[in-house]
Protein backbone atom coordinates (compact mmCIF):
# COMPACT_ATOMS: atom_id res chain seq x y z
CA UNK A 1 0.00 0.00 0.00
CA UNK A 2 3.01 2.29 -0.19
CA UNK A 3 1.53 4.35 -2.97
CA UNK A 4 -1.71 5.19 -1.22
CA UNK A 5 -0.15 7.82 1.00
CA UNK A 6 0.65 9.83 -2.10
CA UNK A 7 -2.96 10.23 -3.12
CA UNK A 8 -4.61 13.52 -2.49
CA UNK A 9 -7.38 11.68 -0.76
CA UNK A 10 -5.78 8.48 0.55
CA UNK A 11 -8.92 7.43 2.42
CA UNK A 12 -11.08 7.32 -0.69
CA UNK A 13 -8.30 5.68 -2.65
CA UNK A 14 -7.91 2.99 -0.01
CA UNK A 15 -11.63 2.36 0.13
CA UNK A 16 -11.87 2.07 -3.67
CA UNK A 17 -8.89 -0.28 -3.80
CA UNK A 18 -10.41 -2.42 -1.02
CA UNK A 19 -13.72 -2.57 -2.86
CA UNK A 20 -12.02 -3.62 -6.08
CA UNK A 21 -10.14 -6.39 -4.29
CA UNK A 22 -13.17 -7.67 -2.42
CA UNK A 23 -15.38 -7.56 -5.51
CA UNK A 24 -13.02 -9.43 -7.81
CA UNK A 25 -13.53 -13.17 -7.50
CA UNK A 26 -10.68 -13.72 -9.98
CA UNK A 27 -8.00 -11.69 -11.69
CA UNK A 28 -9.60 -9.74 -14.54
CA UNK A 29 -7.74 -8.32 -17.54
CA UNK A 30 -8.46 -4.65 -18.19
CA UNK A 31 -7.08 -2.31 -20.81
CA UNK A 32 -6.82 1.44 -20.39
CA UNK A 33 -6.93 2.96 -23.85
CA UNK A 34 -5.43 6.37 -23.28
CA UNK A 35 -1.71 7.00 -22.89
CA UNK A 36 -2.41 9.69 -20.30
CA UNK A 37 -4.16 7.04 -18.22
CA UNK A 38 -1.19 4.66 -18.66
CA UNK A 39 1.03 7.43 -17.38
CA UNK A 40 -1.08 7.93 -14.22
CA UNK A 41 -1.47 4.20 -13.60
CA UNK A 42 2.26 3.53 -13.76
CA UNK A 43 3.25 6.70 -11.94
CA UNK A 44 0.85 6.08 -9.06
CA UNK A 45 1.47 2.34 -9.02
CA UNK A 46 -2.23 1.54 -9.48
CA UNK A 47 -1.40 -1.63 -11.41
CA UNK A 48 0.85 -2.87 -8.60
CA UNK A 49 -1.62 -1.86 -5.93
CA UNK A 50 -4.36 -3.93 -7.56
CA UNK A 51 -2.08 -6.68 -8.79
CA UNK A 52 -4.15 -9.57 -7.42
CA UNK A 53 -7.49 -8.28 -8.65
CA UNK A 54 -6.75 -6.92 -12.10
CA UNK A 55 -4.06 -7.07 -14.71
CA UNK A 56 -3.79 -3.71 -16.44
CA UNK A 57 -2.68 -3.88 -20.02
CA UNK A 58 -1.73 -0.67 -21.68
CA UNK A 59 -3.51 0.28 -24.85
CA UNK A 60 -2.50 1.99 -28.07
CA UNK A 61 -3.71 5.45 -27.04
CA UNK A 62 -0.45 7.32 -27.46
CA UNK A 63 -0.72 9.53 -30.55
CA UNK A 64 3.02 9.95 -30.84
CA UNK A 65 3.53 6.19 -30.71
CA UNK A 66 1.10 5.22 -33.43
CA UNK A 67 2.00 7.89 -35.99
CA UNK A 68 3.48 5.77 -38.78
CA UNK A 69 7.18 5.85 -39.50
CA UNK A 70 6.42 6.78 -43.12
CA UNK A 71 4.61 9.87 -41.90
CA UNK A 72 7.54 10.87 -39.68
CA UNK A 73 9.84 10.46 -42.67
CA UNK A 74 7.53 12.68 -44.75
CA UNK A 75 7.62 15.26 -41.96
CA UNK A 76 11.43 15.17 -41.92
CA UNK A 77 11.53 15.57 -45.67
CA UNK A 78 9.20 18.58 -45.68
CA UNK A 79 10.80 20.18 -42.61
CA UNK A 80 14.23 20.13 -44.26
CA UNK A 81 13.07 22.35 -47.14
CA UNK A 82 14.50 25.90 -46.98
CA UNK A 83 11.13 27.49 -47.87
CA UNK A 84 9.26 25.73 -45.04
CA UNK A 85 8.47 26.57 -41.44
CA UNK A 86 7.51 23.23 -39.92
CA UNK A 87 5.30 23.40 -36.83
CA UNK A 88 4.33 20.64 -34.43
CA UNK A 89 3.28 19.73 -30.91
CA UNK A 90 6.50 19.33 -28.89
CA UNK A 91 6.15 15.58 -28.38
CA UNK A 92 6.73 14.83 -32.04
CA UNK A 93 10.20 16.35 -32.27
CA UNK A 94 12.09 13.46 -30.75
CA UNK A 95 10.19 10.66 -32.46
CA UNK A 96 12.70 8.68 -34.48
CA UNK A 97 12.11 8.46 -38.21
CA UNK A 98 14.05 6.01 -40.35
CA UNK A 99 17.24 7.99 -40.16
CA UNK A 100 16.74 11.09 -38.07
CA UNK A 101 14.23 13.13 -36.09
CA UNK A 102 12.83 16.66 -36.23
CA UNK A 103 15.35 17.90 -33.66
CA UNK A 104 18.11 16.75 -35.98
CA UNK A 105 16.50 18.55 -38.90
CA UNK A 106 16.41 21.68 -36.79
CA UNK A 107 20.05 21.28 -35.76
CA UNK A 108 20.87 21.08 -39.46
CA UNK A 109 19.24 24.45 -40.08
CA UNK A 110 15.59 23.54 -40.69
CA UNK A 111 13.00 25.95 -39.29
CA UNK A 112 11.12 23.62 -36.95
CA UNK A 113 8.92 25.22 -34.30
CA UNK A 114 6.90 23.90 -31.41
CA UNK A 115 3.43 25.40 -31.15
CA UNK A 116 0.89 25.32 -28.35
CA UNK A 117 -2.14 25.32 -30.63
CA UNK A 118 -2.60 24.63 -34.35
CA UNK A 119 -4.06 28.15 -34.56
CA UNK A 120 -0.58 29.41 -33.64
CA UNK A 121 0.75 27.62 -36.72
CA UNK A 122 -1.88 29.38 -38.82
CA UNK A 123 -0.88 32.68 -37.24
CA UNK A 124 2.75 32.08 -38.21
CA UNK A 125 1.58 31.51 -41.78
CA UNK A 126 -0.31 34.82 -41.74
CA UNK A 127 2.76 36.64 -40.46
CA UNK A 128 5.12 35.02 -42.97
CA UNK A 129 3.37 35.02 -46.36
CA UNK A 130 6.76 34.40 -48.00
CA UNK A 131 7.10 31.02 -46.25
CA UNK A 132 5.24 27.73 -46.53
CA UNK A 133 4.01 26.93 -43.04
CA UNK A 134 3.21 23.27 -42.39
CA UNK A 135 1.54 21.88 -39.27
CA UNK A 136 1.93 18.22 -38.26
CA UNK A 137 -1.70 17.34 -37.50
CA UNK A 138 -1.50 14.22 -35.35
CA UNK A 139 -3.51 12.77 -32.54
CA UNK A 140 -6.77 11.17 -31.56
CA UNK A 141 -10.23 12.70 -31.27
CA UNK A 142 -8.92 15.06 -28.58
CA UNK A 143 -6.76 17.07 -30.98
CA UNK A 144 -9.03 16.63 -34.02
CA UNK A 145 -11.35 19.57 -33.15
CA UNK A 146 -8.33 21.89 -32.89
CA UNK A 147 -6.64 20.66 -36.04
CA UNK A 148 -9.88 20.71 -38.02
CA UNK A 149 -10.54 24.29 -36.94
CA UNK A 150 -7.08 25.42 -38.07
CA UNK A 151 -7.73 24.06 -41.56
CA UNK A 152 -11.27 25.44 -41.66
CA UNK A 153 -9.93 28.87 -40.66
CA UNK A 154 -7.13 28.74 -43.22
CA UNK A 155 -9.72 28.25 -45.94
CA UNK A 156 -12.04 30.89 -44.53
CA UNK A 157 -9.22 33.45 -44.32
CA UNK A 158 -7.69 32.25 -47.59
CA UNK A 159 -4.23 31.56 -46.14
CA UNK A 160 -2.73 29.70 -49.07
CA UNK A 161 0.76 29.25 -47.59
CA UNK A 162 -0.60 27.03 -44.79
CA UNK A 163 -0.94 23.26 -45.02
CA UNK A 164 -1.19 20.25 -42.73
CA UNK A 165 0.49 16.86 -42.72
CA UNK A 166 -2.35 14.75 -41.36
CA UNK A 167 -1.98 11.58 -39.36
CA UNK A 168 -5.18 11.43 -37.34
CA UNK A 169 -6.41 8.24 -35.75
CA UNK A 170 -9.65 7.35 -34.00
CA UNK A 171 -10.06 5.10 -30.99
CA UNK A 172 -13.08 2.81 -31.60
CA UNK A 173 -11.64 1.04 -34.71
CA UNK A 174 -8.46 0.25 -32.76
CA UNK A 175 -10.52 -1.25 -29.94
CA UNK A 176 -12.45 -3.29 -32.50
CA UNK A 177 -9.21 -4.55 -34.03
CA UNK A 178 -7.94 -5.62 -30.61
CA UNK A 179 -11.19 -7.35 -29.69
CA UNK A 180 -11.46 -9.11 -33.05
CA UNK A 181 -7.93 -10.49 -32.80
CA UNK A 182 -7.99 -14.25 -32.03
CA UNK A 183 -5.52 -13.90 -29.19
CA UNK A 184 -7.30 -11.00 -27.50
CA UNK A 185 -7.06 -11.10 -23.70
CA UNK A 186 -8.86 -7.84 -22.87
CA UNK A 187 -12.02 -8.41 -20.83
CA UNK A 188 -12.99 -4.79 -20.18
CA UNK A 189 -11.92 -1.36 -21.36
CA UNK A 190 -11.44 1.96 -19.68
CA UNK A 191 -12.30 4.35 -22.51
CA UNK A 192 -10.49 7.67 -22.69
CA UNK A 193 -12.37 10.46 -20.91
CA UNK A 194 -11.26 13.34 -23.08
CA UNK A 195 -11.78 11.50 -26.34
CA UNK A 196 -15.35 10.94 -25.18
CA UNK A 197 -15.71 14.57 -24.09
CA UNK A 198 -15.43 15.34 -27.79
CA UNK A 199 -17.12 12.32 -29.36
CA UNK A 200 -19.52 11.11 -26.67
CA UNK A 201 -19.87 7.37 -26.22
CA UNK A 202 -22.55 6.20 -28.65
CA UNK A 203 -19.83 4.71 -30.89
CA UNK A 204 -18.86 2.36 -28.07
CA UNK A 205 -22.33 0.93 -27.53
CA UNK A 206 -22.30 -1.51 -30.49
CA UNK A 207 -18.76 -2.53 -29.50
CA UNK A 208 -19.78 -3.40 -25.96
CA UNK A 209 -22.78 -5.34 -27.23
CA UNK A 210 -21.04 -7.23 -30.06
CA UNK A 211 -18.00 -8.32 -28.09
CA UNK A 212 -19.82 -8.52 -24.75
CA UNK A 213 -17.21 -6.34 -23.14
CA UNK A 214 -17.78 -3.69 -20.45
CA UNK A 215 -16.53 -0.23 -21.44
CA UNK A 216 -16.20 2.44 -18.78
CA UNK A 217 -15.54 6.03 -19.88
CA UNK A 218 -12.89 7.10 -17.37
CA UNK A 219 -11.00 10.25 -16.41
CA UNK A 220 -7.26 10.46 -15.93
CA UNK A 221 -6.81 11.34 -12.28
CA UNK A 222 -5.83 8.56 -9.86
CA UNK A 223 -9.24 8.42 -8.17
CA UNK A 224 -10.99 8.43 -11.57
CA UNK A 225 -8.99 5.41 -12.61
CA UNK A 226 -9.68 3.51 -9.39
CA UNK A 227 -13.38 4.26 -9.75
CA UNK A 228 -13.39 3.27 -13.44
CA UNK A 229 -11.67 -0.01 -12.60
CA UNK A 230 -14.21 -0.71 -9.86
CA UNK A 231 -17.12 -0.06 -12.25
CA UNK A 232 -15.58 -2.40 -14.84
CA UNK A 233 -14.93 -5.14 -12.28
CA UNK A 234 -18.51 -4.83 -11.02
CA UNK A 235 -19.82 -5.36 -14.52
CA UNK A 236 -17.52 -8.31 -15.14
CA UNK A 237 -18.57 -9.98 -11.90
CA UNK A 238 -22.24 -9.58 -12.79
CA UNK A 239 -21.77 -10.68 -16.39
CA UNK A 240 -22.86 -7.28 -17.72
CA UNK A 241 -21.36 -5.56 -20.72
CA UNK A 242 -22.49 -1.98 -21.00
CA UNK A 243 -21.01 1.41 -21.63
CA UNK A 244 -20.87 3.31 -18.37
CA UNK A 245 -19.59 6.78 -17.66
CA UNK A 246 -17.31 7.37 -14.70
CA UNK A 247 -16.18 10.78 -15.98
CA UNK A 248 -19.54 12.55 -15.64
CA UNK A 249 -17.85 15.85 -14.82
CA UNK A 250 -16.81 16.31 -18.42
CA UNK A 251 -18.48 13.74 -20.67
CA UNK A 252 -22.00 13.69 -22.06
CA UNK A 253 -23.40 10.83 -24.13
CA UNK A 254 -23.63 12.94 -27.28
CA UNK A 255 -20.23 14.58 -26.76
CA UNK A 256 -19.37 18.06 -28.00
CA UNK A 257 -21.58 18.66 -31.05
CA UNK A 258 -19.99 21.87 -32.36
CA UNK A 259 -16.58 20.16 -32.29
CA UNK A 260 -17.96 17.10 -34.12
CA UNK A 261 -19.46 19.42 -36.75
CA UNK A 262 -16.16 21.07 -37.60
CA UNK A 263 -14.34 17.71 -37.61
CA UNK A 264 -16.99 16.43 -40.03
CA UNK A 265 -16.67 19.45 -42.30
CA UNK A 266 -12.91 19.19 -42.69
CA UNK A 267 -12.13 15.49 -42.28
CA UNK A 268 -13.46 12.21 -43.61
CA UNK A 269 -12.81 8.65 -42.47
CA UNK A 270 -9.83 6.99 -44.13
CA UNK A 271 -7.88 3.77 -43.69
CA UNK A 272 -4.84 4.44 -41.56
CA UNK A 273 -1.59 2.73 -40.86
CA UNK A 274 -0.83 2.54 -37.12
CA UNK A 275 2.83 2.45 -36.24
CA UNK A 276 3.66 -0.96 -34.81
CA UNK A 277 0.16 -2.29 -35.42
CA UNK A 278 -0.45 -2.00 -39.15
CA UNK A 279 -3.37 -0.98 -41.30
CA UNK A 280 -6.74 -0.60 -39.58
CA UNK A 281 -9.65 0.08 -41.97
CA UNK A 282 -11.53 3.37 -41.48
CA UNK A 283 -9.46 4.14 -38.42
CA UNK A 284 -8.24 7.59 -39.24
CA UNK A 285 -9.15 11.01 -40.48
CA UNK A 286 -7.93 12.57 -43.70
CA UNK A 287 -8.76 15.88 -45.35
CA UNK A 288 -11.90 16.11 -47.44
CA UNK A 289 -11.59 16.94 -51.13
CA UNK A 290 -12.64 20.56 -50.52
CA UNK A 291 -9.57 21.02 -48.37
CA UNK A 292 -7.06 19.33 -50.69
CA UNK A 293 -5.26 22.65 -51.18
CA UNK A 294 -4.20 22.42 -47.53
CA UNK A 295 -2.82 18.89 -47.79
CA UNK A 296 0.95 19.03 -47.29
CA UNK A 297 1.39 15.55 -48.78
CA UNK A 298 -0.03 16.78 -52.09
CA UNK A 299 1.61 20.18 -51.91
CA UNK A 300 5.10 18.78 -51.42
CA UNK A 301 4.67 15.55 -53.36
CA UNK A 302 5.78 13.22 -50.59
CA UNK A 303 3.08 10.59 -50.92
CA UNK A 304 5.25 7.55 -51.56
CA UNK A 305 7.77 6.71 -48.91
CA UNK A 306 8.63 3.28 -47.61
CA UNK A 307 10.32 2.78 -44.30
CA UNK A 308 11.37 -0.08 -42.08
CA UNK A 309 11.34 -0.19 -38.28
CA UNK A 310 14.45 -1.17 -36.31
CA UNK A 311 14.25 -4.90 -35.63
CA UNK A 312 15.05 -4.58 -31.93
CA UNK A 313 11.90 -2.55 -31.23
CA UNK A 314 8.80 -4.41 -30.09
CA UNK A 315 6.53 -1.38 -30.09
CA UNK A 316 3.82 -3.30 -31.94
CA UNK A 317 3.58 -5.89 -29.18
CA UNK A 318 3.65 -3.18 -26.52
CA UNK A 319 0.93 -1.16 -28.24
CA UNK A 320 -1.31 -4.20 -28.60
CA UNK A 321 -0.80 -5.11 -24.96
CA UNK A 322 1.01 -8.35 -25.81
CA UNK A 323 4.24 -7.32 -24.13
CA UNK A 324 4.92 -5.14 -21.11
CA UNK A 325 7.58 -2.51 -21.88
CA UNK A 326 10.19 -3.95 -19.51
CA UNK A 327 9.93 -7.30 -21.26
CA UNK A 328 11.41 -5.76 -24.41
CA UNK A 329 15.09 -6.78 -24.61
CA UNK A 330 16.08 -3.26 -25.68
CA UNK A 331 14.24 -1.58 -22.79
CA UNK A 332 16.58 0.55 -20.68
CA UNK A 333 19.66 -0.65 -22.53
CA UNK A 334 19.57 0.06 -26.26
CA UNK A 335 16.45 2.13 -25.80
CA UNK A 336 16.10 4.98 -23.28
CA UNK A 337 14.23 8.30 -23.33
CA UNK A 338 17.52 10.02 -24.27
CA UNK A 339 18.13 7.62 -27.15
CA UNK A 340 14.75 6.17 -28.03
CA UNK A 341 14.64 3.30 -30.48
CA UNK A 342 10.89 3.37 -30.80
CA UNK A 343 8.18 5.96 -30.34
CA UNK A 344 6.68 4.56 -27.07
CA UNK A 345 9.93 5.57 -25.35
CA UNK A 346 9.56 9.19 -26.48
CA UNK A 347 6.31 10.68 -25.36
CA UNK A 348 5.18 10.88 -21.75
CA UNK A 349 2.05 9.10 -22.98
CA UNK A 350 4.09 6.17 -24.27
CA UNK A 351 4.06 3.04 -22.12
CA UNK A 352 7.82 2.43 -22.47
CA UNK A 353 8.63 5.96 -21.28
CA UNK A 354 6.20 5.59 -18.36
CA UNK A 355 7.86 2.33 -17.27
CA UNK A 356 11.31 3.85 -17.63
CA UNK A 357 10.52 7.11 -15.84
CA UNK A 358 8.85 5.40 -12.90
CA UNK A 359 11.50 2.77 -12.39
CA UNK A 360 9.76 -0.34 -13.64
CA UNK A 361 12.78 -2.40 -14.53
CA UNK A 362 13.33 -6.12 -14.61
CA UNK A 363 12.91 -6.58 -10.87
CA UNK A 364 9.31 -5.56 -11.39
CA UNK A 365 8.97 -7.81 -14.42
CA UNK A 366 8.91 -10.88 -12.24
CA UNK A 367 5.76 -9.64 -10.53
CA UNK A 368 3.86 -8.43 -13.59
Amino acid sequence: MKYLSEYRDPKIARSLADQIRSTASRRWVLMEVCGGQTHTIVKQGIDELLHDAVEMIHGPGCPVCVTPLEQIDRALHIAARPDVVFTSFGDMLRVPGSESDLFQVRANGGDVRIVYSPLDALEIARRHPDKEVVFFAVGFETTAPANAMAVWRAKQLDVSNFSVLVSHVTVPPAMTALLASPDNRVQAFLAAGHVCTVMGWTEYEPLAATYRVPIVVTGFEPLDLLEGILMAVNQLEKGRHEVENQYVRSVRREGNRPAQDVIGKVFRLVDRQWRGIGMIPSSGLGLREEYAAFDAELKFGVSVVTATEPEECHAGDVLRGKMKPHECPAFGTLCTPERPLGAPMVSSEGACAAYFNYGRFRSAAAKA
Partner: protein
Amino acid sequence: MCLGIPGRIVEIKDDTGLRMGTVDFGGVRRDVCLAYLDEDIQVGDYAIVHVGFAISKVDEDEAKRTFEILKEMSELDELEWLGDVADRSLEGGTAS
Protein backbone atom coordinates in the same frame (compact mmCIF):
# COMPACT_ATOMS: atom_id res chain seq x y z
CA MET B 1 -1.04 16.15 -25.97
CA CYS B 2 -4.22 14.52 -24.71
CA LEU B 3 -4.03 16.05 -21.26
CA GLY B 4 -6.76 18.61 -20.72
CA ILE B 5 -5.96 21.43 -18.34
CA PRO B 6 -8.68 23.41 -16.56
CA GLY B 7 -8.42 27.17 -16.57
CA ARG B 8 -10.46 30.30 -15.93
CA ILE B 9 -11.76 32.37 -18.81
CA VAL B 10 -10.63 35.96 -18.21
CA GLU B 11 -11.53 37.50 -21.55
CA ILE B 12 -13.85 36.67 -24.44
CA LYS B 13 -13.26 38.26 -27.81
CA ASP B 14 -14.12 37.91 -31.45
CA ASP B 15 -11.33 37.36 -33.94
CA THR B 16 -12.87 37.94 -37.39
CA GLY B 17 -15.81 35.68 -36.68
CA LEU B 18 -14.10 33.16 -34.41
CA ARG B 19 -14.86 33.18 -30.70
CA MET B 20 -11.53 33.38 -28.89
CA GLY B 21 -10.55 34.22 -25.36
CA THR B 22 -7.81 34.41 -22.79
CA VAL B 23 -7.65 31.63 -20.23
CA ASP B 24 -5.71 31.79 -16.99
CA PHE B 25 -4.08 28.55 -15.83
CA GLY B 26 -2.94 29.32 -12.30
CA GLY B 27 -1.18 32.49 -13.43
CA VAL B 28 -0.11 31.40 -16.92
CA ARG B 29 -2.31 33.02 -19.56
CA ARG B 30 -2.89 31.72 -23.06
CA ASP B 31 -5.07 32.60 -26.04
CA VAL B 32 -7.67 29.90 -26.35
CA CYS B 33 -10.35 29.18 -28.94
CA LEU B 34 -13.79 29.16 -27.31
CA ALA B 35 -15.83 28.24 -30.40
CA TYR B 36 -16.64 24.76 -29.08
CA LEU B 37 -18.30 25.97 -25.87
CA ASP B 38 -21.97 26.94 -25.55
CA GLU B 39 -22.65 30.52 -26.46
CA ASP B 40 -23.72 31.49 -22.96
CA ILE B 41 -20.24 31.16 -21.45
CA GLN B 42 -19.00 34.16 -19.52
CA VAL B 43 -15.84 35.65 -18.16
CA GLY B 44 -15.14 33.83 -14.90
CA ASP B 45 -16.31 30.44 -16.17
CA TYR B 46 -13.93 27.48 -16.09
CA ALA B 47 -13.18 25.16 -18.98
CA ILE B 48 -10.95 22.21 -19.83
CA VAL B 49 -8.51 23.20 -22.54
CA HIS B 50 -6.76 20.92 -25.03
CA VAL B 51 -4.07 22.23 -27.37
CA GLY B 52 -5.51 25.74 -27.27
CA PHE B 53 -9.19 24.77 -27.52
CA ALA B 54 -11.74 24.72 -24.72
CA ILE B 55 -13.71 21.50 -25.10
CA SER B 56 -15.92 21.44 -22.03
CA LYS B 57 -17.10 23.70 -19.28
CA VAL B 58 -16.48 22.60 -15.70
CA ASP B 59 -17.51 24.09 -12.39
CA GLU B 60 -15.08 26.12 -10.35
CA ASP B 61 -14.51 23.62 -7.55
CA GLU B 62 -13.87 20.84 -10.01
CA ALA B 63 -11.48 22.99 -12.01
CA LYS B 64 -9.50 24.03 -8.95
CA ARG B 65 -9.35 20.49 -7.60
CA THR B 66 -8.14 19.08 -10.92
CA PHE B 67 -5.59 21.85 -11.25
CA GLU B 68 -4.18 21.06 -7.82
CA ILE B 69 -3.97 17.37 -8.62
CA LEU B 70 -2.17 18.07 -11.88
CA LYS B 71 0.22 20.31 -10.01
CA GLU B 72 0.87 17.68 -7.38
CA MET B 73 1.52 15.09 -10.04
CA SER B 74 3.93 17.60 -11.66
CA GLU B 75 1.92 17.52 -14.85
CA LEU B 76 1.96 21.27 -15.25
CA ASP B 77 5.69 21.86 -15.71
CA GLU B 78 5.14 21.66 -19.40
CA LEU B 79 2.58 24.43 -19.36
CA GLU B 80 5.05 27.16 -18.47
CA TRP B 81 7.79 25.80 -20.64
CA LEU B 82 5.37 25.51 -23.51
CA GLY B 83 4.15 29.06 -23.02
CA ASP B 84 7.66 30.41 -23.54
CA VAL B 85 8.45 28.15 -26.43
CA ALA B 86 5.16 28.79 -28.18
CA ASP B 87 5.52 32.55 -27.85
CA ARG B 88 8.98 32.44 -29.36
CA SER B 89 7.68 30.29 -32.20
CA LEU B 90 5.09 32.95 -32.96
CA GLU B 91 7.62 35.75 -32.83
CA GLY B 92 9.77 34.00 -35.39
CA GLY B 93 13.19 32.49 -35.12
CA THR B 94 13.73 28.94 -34.05
CA ALA B 95 12.57 28.15 -30.55
CA SER B 96 14.59 25.82 -28.42
